[in-house]
C-alpha cells in the first residue's frame, strides 16, 4: 500500500526556492529592450479635467511617450463587468458603471489616472509625471453613504438619476409579524469602515508583444489569469491562444488582484503593441493605497426581535454599501453580507435590504472576508445588545439559537454571490461553541478570573462569537494531469497562487491517487499556456473546486495507468496497485513497471492506435459544485485593556474551525493565522480614511497601521471539527477567509466586556485608542 499523503501536514514543495531568494516575482522580470510605465494620477476625487499639458514631460530625455485619453481613441470606454449583475434576485435593480482605463473628462476618485508615461527607466517615468500639468475644475465630492442618496447630492455618474448603484431586497418568513409577536425588539445603527488588502507585493504587470510570432505574453500576479487573457484577446481582436498570461510567484493577493481590465492592463497591452517593446509597471505603496481596490465600508440599520427567553424570532437589516466610483465587481461583497448575517442561527424571519452607493472613493471589490465580516459583525453585535437587555450570558444566548447538527442541508432562502439560493451543506455549530468554551475555560473565566481581575481594578473582558464562511463556489475549475517520461507528475490548473501552498496541497491530492512522492509532483498554477479554462482564485475556492478537479483528473490517469499496465504485466487491474512511482502486482511487488515507462508506452510512435484511445498518461477533468461548501467556526478572545491609555492587549485567542477534511492541516492553520491577523487589524489598527473632499489620508505605512508581531496574541489556540462536505469526493471546504470573519466582532465584544464599568456600547469596527476613549467619555456622560 502506498503511504497516504492526503490529510497530512507535509512541508511545502515551494519553500526551498523561495527561502533561497530564487523565486521569481513580478518585478524580478527583466526583458532586453524593456520600457517602464508610470501613471500620473488625479489629486482630486471629483473634478472635471479641463485640459492637460504633457509637452514638458515629453521633452524629458529618456521619455518615450506620454499618453492621455485622446491618444487612446476607442479604448477609452467603460471596461467589462467582472461579475454578472444580480438578475437572479427578484426585484433587484442595478446600474452598471464600470472602470474607465483613463480619465477623459471627469475624475471620479482621487488617484484615477489622467496620463501614462513610458520611459527608458522607472525613475525617468516617475520624474516625467511631475512635469505633466492637468487643469481641473473641482466638484463637491460624494463621500457620506446616506447623504449620497439624498436628493440634490452631487452625482458621481451624471447620466444616472442618483448615486444608487443597486438595490436588493431579500427576505424569508415575515419580519413585521415576528416583531409584533416578540417580547423585545432592539434597533441599532452599526458601521464598518474600509481596510486595504495590503498584499506585501504591490500590483504590477509586464507585457511583451512578439510582433513576428504575433503572440503576447503577460506576466501578472493576477488572481484570475484566464479572465485577463480572455479580456485582453477580446479587446485586441486576437485569438485567446495568441495571449499567454503567466503568474509568477506572487506576494499575496487577498482579493484586489482578482481585478482585470484595470487601467494598467488595458493601456499597457495597447502601448506594448504600438511601441513594439516590452513594458513593465510595478506599483508603489502609495499607489497601492490610492488606486488598488479595497473594501468594507457599510452602514447598517439593524433590528432584532426576540422572546424574553432569548429566542430570536426575526432579524431586519437595511444597509448602505459603498461601491466606490465604479461597480465593475457588481454585488459580490454586499450579497456576501446578506448571506452571512443570519446563516448559522435559526431565525425564522429575516429581511435584508441593500442600497449600494456610488461615491468618490476607490472602487470596492472583495478583500479577504469579502462582505462576510460585516454580516457577522452586525449579527453578533445585535445578539450582544440583546443579551445585555435580557441580562443573559452571551454564550448562552448564542447556544440556544444555533442551527442543530441534524438539520443539514439547510436552505437559507437568501441568494448569494454565486446567484444560487444558499444551502448549508454540513456542519456542527454547537460543538464548535462548546469546544471553544472549554478551551478558553469560559466558566472559570466568568466565575473566578474575571471577578478577581475586576476586584483588582483590571479591565479584563471576554468575547465569544460564531460564524460561517461560504466557500468553494462555482462555476467550475479544471485540471490537467500528465505523467512524464521521467516518471514525475505534472498538474496544471487555471487558478493562480499567491502563497496558499497550492504547489504542495494540489500535489498531495494527485500523489495520493498516483502513488508518487509529493515532491515529484510539479504543480503549475496560473499559466494559460498550461491550462486555459477556469474562473480564478477567490471566495476560498481554490482548494475545494480546483482541488476536486485535480482529484478527478488523477483518478482518470490512475485508471489509464492500471489499464495499460494490466496489458503489459498480463495481470487483472484489480490485482494492481500504484506505489512509489510504479504500477505493481499487489502480491508480487517485483512484477512492476514504472510510471515513466508506462507514459512512454502510452504514446506509441509506430504501429496502430485503437479507436477511442487517447495518447499519454494524461487526463483532464472539470468540477463545478451545485452550490458552495460552508465552513464555520467559533472564536473567543480575552482582552486586557489599559483603562488609562485604552490600549488593549489580547491575552488569549481561541478558535475552533471546520473546513471539512483539511488536505494539509499545517497549511490550514497558516491560513487561519493570517486571516486572524487581518481581522485584528480590521478591528483595531487598520483604516482607509477618506476625508470629506475624498482625499485619502492613509496612503503610507506611516498612516495606515499594519498589525505587527507585538500586536498579535502570544498564541492562536486552534481547534478543529472535521465535518466532511458531502458536495465533493474529498469532503473539503475552503478556509482562506475564516480567520478574518469573526475577529472584529469578537474583539469589539471583548472590549465592551472589559470596559463594562463604563457602560460603553461600541457599534463600529476599525477602532483606535482615541476612538475607544471617546466612546467611554460619551458613555460616562462626560
Amino acid at each position, binding site marked *: 500500500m502506498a503511504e497516504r499523503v492526503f490529510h497530512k501536514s507535509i512541508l511545502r514543495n515551494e519553500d526551498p526556492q523561495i527561502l533561497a531568494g530564487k523565486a521569481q516575482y513580478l518585478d524580478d522580470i527583466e526583458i532586453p529592450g524593456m520600457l517602464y510605465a508610470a501613471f500620473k494620477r488625479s489629486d482630486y476625487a471629483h473634478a472635471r479635467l479641463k485640459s492637460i499639458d504633457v509637452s514638458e514631460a515629453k521633452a524629458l530625455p529618456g521619455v518615450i511617450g506620454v499618453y492621455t485619453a485622446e491618444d487612446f481613441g476607442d479604448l477609452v470606454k467603460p471596461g467589462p463587468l467582472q461579475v454578472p449583475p444580480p438578475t437572479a434576485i427578484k426585484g433587484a435593480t442595478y446600474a452598471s458603471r464600470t472602470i474607465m482605463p483613463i480619465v477623459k473628462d471627469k475624475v471620479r476618485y482621487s488617484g484615477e489616472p489622467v496620463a501614462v508615461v513610458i520611459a527608458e527607466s522607472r525613475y525617468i517615468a516617475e520624474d516625467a509625471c511631475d512635469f505633466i500639468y492637468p487643469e481641473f475644475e473641482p466638484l463637491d465630492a460624494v463621500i457620506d453613504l446616506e447623504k449620497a442618496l439624498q436628493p440634490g447630492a452631487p452625482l458621481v455618474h451624471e447620466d444616472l438619476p442618483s448615486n444608487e448603484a443597486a438595490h436588493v431586497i431579500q427576505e424569508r418568513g415575515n419580519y413585521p409579524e415576528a416583531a409584533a409577536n416578540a417580547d423585545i425588539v432592539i434597533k441599532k445603527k452599526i458601521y464598518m469602515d474600509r481596510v486595504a488588502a495590503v498584499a506585501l507585493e504591490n500590483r504590477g504587470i509586464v507585457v511583451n508583444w512578439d510582433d513576428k510570432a504575433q503572440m503576447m505574453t503577460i506576466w501578472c500576479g493576477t488572481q484570475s489569469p484566464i479572465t485577463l487573457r480572455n479580456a485582453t484577446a477580446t479587446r485586441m481582436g486576437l485569438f485567446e491562444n495568441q495571449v499567454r498570461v503567466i503568474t509568477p510567484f*506572487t506576494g499575496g493577493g487577498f482579493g484586489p488582484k482578482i481585478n482585470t481590465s484595470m487601467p494598467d492592463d488595458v493601456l499597457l497591452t495597447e502601448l506594448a503593441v504600438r511601441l513594439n517593446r516590452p513594458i513593465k509597471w510595478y506599483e508603489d505603496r502609495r499607489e497601492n493605497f490610492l488606486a488598488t481596490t479595497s473594501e468594507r465600508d457599510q452602514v447598517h440599520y439593524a433590528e432584532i426581535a426576540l422572546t424574553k427567553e432569548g429566542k430570536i424570532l426575526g432579524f431586519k437589516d437595511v444597509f448602505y454599501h459603498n461601491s466606490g466610483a465604479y461597480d465593475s465587481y457588481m454585488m459580490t461583497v454586499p450579497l456576501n453580507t446578506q448571506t452571512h448575517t443570519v446563516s448559522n442561527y435559526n431565525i425564522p424571519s429575516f429581511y435584508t435590504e441593500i442600497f449600494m452607493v456610488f461615491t468618490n472613493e476607490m472602487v470596492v471589490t472583495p478583500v479577504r472576508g469579502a462582505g462576510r465580516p460585516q454580516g457577522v459583525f452586525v449579527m453578533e453585535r445585535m445578539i450582544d445588545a440583546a443579551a445585555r437587555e435580557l441580562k443573559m450570558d452571551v454564550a448562552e444566548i448564542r447556544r440556544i439559537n444555533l442551527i442543530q447538527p441534524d438539520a443539514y442541508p439547510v436552505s437559507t432562502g437568501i441568494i448569494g454571490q454565486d446567484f444560487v439560493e444558499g444551502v448549508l451543506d454540513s456542519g456542527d455549530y454547537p460543538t464548535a461553541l462548546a469546544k471553544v468554551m472549554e478551551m478558553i475555560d469560559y466558566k472559570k473565566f466568568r466565575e473566578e478570573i474575571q471577578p478577581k481581575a475586576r476586584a483588582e481594578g483590571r479591565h479584563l473582558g471576554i468575547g465569544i462569537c460564531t460564524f460561517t464562511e461560504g466557500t468553494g463556489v462555482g462555476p467550475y475549475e479544471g485540471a490537467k494531469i500528465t505523467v512524464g517520461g521521467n516518471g514525475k507528475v505534472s498538474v496544471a490548473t487555471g487558478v493562480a497562487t499567491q502563497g496558499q501552498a497550492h504547489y504542495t496541497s494540489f500535489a498531495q491530492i494527485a500523489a495520493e491517487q498516483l502513488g508518487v512522492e509529493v515532491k515529484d509532483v510539479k504543480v503549475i498554477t496560473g499559466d494559460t499556456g498550461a491550462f486555459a479554462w477556469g474562473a480564478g482564485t477567490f471566495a476560498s475556492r481554490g482548494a475545494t473546486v480546483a482541488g476536486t478537479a485535480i482529484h478527478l483528473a488523477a483518478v482518470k490517469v490512475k485508471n489509464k495507468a492500471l489499464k495499460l499496465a494490466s496489458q503489459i504485466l498480463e495481470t487483472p487491474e484489480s490485482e494492481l496497485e500504484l506505489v512509489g512511482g510504479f504500477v505493481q502486482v499487489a502480491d508480487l511487488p517485483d512484477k512492476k513497471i514504472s510510471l515513466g515507462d508506462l507514459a512512454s508506452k502510452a504514446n506509441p510512435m509506430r504501429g496502430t492506435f485503437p479507436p477511442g484511445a487517447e495518447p499519454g498518461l494524461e487526463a483532464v477533468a472539470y468540477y463545478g459544485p451545485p452550490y458552495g461548501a460552508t465552513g464555520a467556526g467559533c472564536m473567543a478572545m480575552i482582552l486586557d485593556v489599559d483603562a488609562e491609555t485604552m490600549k488593549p492587549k489580547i491575552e488569549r485567542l481561541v478558535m475552533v474551525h471546520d473546513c471539512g477534511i483539511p488536505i494539509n492541516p499545517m497549511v490550514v492553520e497558516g491560513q487561519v493565522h493570517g486571516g486572524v491577523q487581518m481581522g485584528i487589524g480590521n478591528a483595531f489598527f487598520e483604516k482607509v480614511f477618506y476625508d470629506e473632499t475624498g482625499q485619502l489620508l492613509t496612503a503610507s505605512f506611516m498612516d495606515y497601521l499594519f498589525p505587527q508581531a507585538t500586536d498579535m496574541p502570544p498564541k492562536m489556540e486552534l481547534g478543529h471539527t472535521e465535518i466532511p462536505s458531502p458536495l465533493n469526493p474529498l469532503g473539503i471546504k475552503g478556509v482562506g477567509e475564516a480567520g478574518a470573519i469573526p475577529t472584529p466582532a469578537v474583539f469589539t465584544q471583548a472590549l465592551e466586556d472589559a470596559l463594562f464599568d463604563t457602560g460603553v456600547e461600541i457599534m463600529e469596527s476599525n477602532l483606535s485608542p482615541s476612538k475607544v476613549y471617546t466612546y467611554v467619555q460619551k458613555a460616562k456622560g462626560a
Partner: protein
Amino acid sequence: MTQLVKINVTVNGVSYEREVEPRLLLSDFIRHDLKLTGTHVGCEHGLCGACTILFDGESVRSCIMFAVMADRHTIETVESLGTPDHLHPLQEAFMEKHALQCGFCTPGFLMTLVDYLGDNKNPTDEEIREAIDGNFCRCTGYENIVEAVRLAAKKMAAHS
C-alpha cells in the same frame, strides 16, 4: 543628464565596480543593477522591512539608502545564506515551521534575523517579537515565524 558616480561594493563576497546615479536607491541597485532579486521591495519608505540586507554586518533597510552610500562597504543579501539544496539553519527552520506563505516578506525577515540571532543566542518569545516587529508579514500572523526563530536558535547553537 545626471552625473554618474563610480562605486566599489562587495556583495556576497563578490566585488563590483559600477557607475550609478547619485539618486539610485540601494535596493534598486541590488535588484536591478546586480540582478540579486532575492531582496524585495514592499513599501520603499522604510517601514515594511522586506528590503532588509546586511550592511557591514548590520541589518539595514536598503530602500532608504542610496547606492552611493555603499561605496567601499560590504553587503550581504538573502542569496548569501543557503541554496535550495543546502539551506541555512534559519531557512530550514522557516520551512519546518511553515513560517512563510507567499514568501515576499521572507528575505527581509531572514536578514533581520541572521543579524539578531548572531548577537542573541537564546531569545525569549517576547524578545523575538520585538526583534521582528519592524518586519511586516501579511500572510502568517507571525506565530510560525516566532516558532521558526526559536527552532533556528537551537539549530544554530548546534552548528556552532
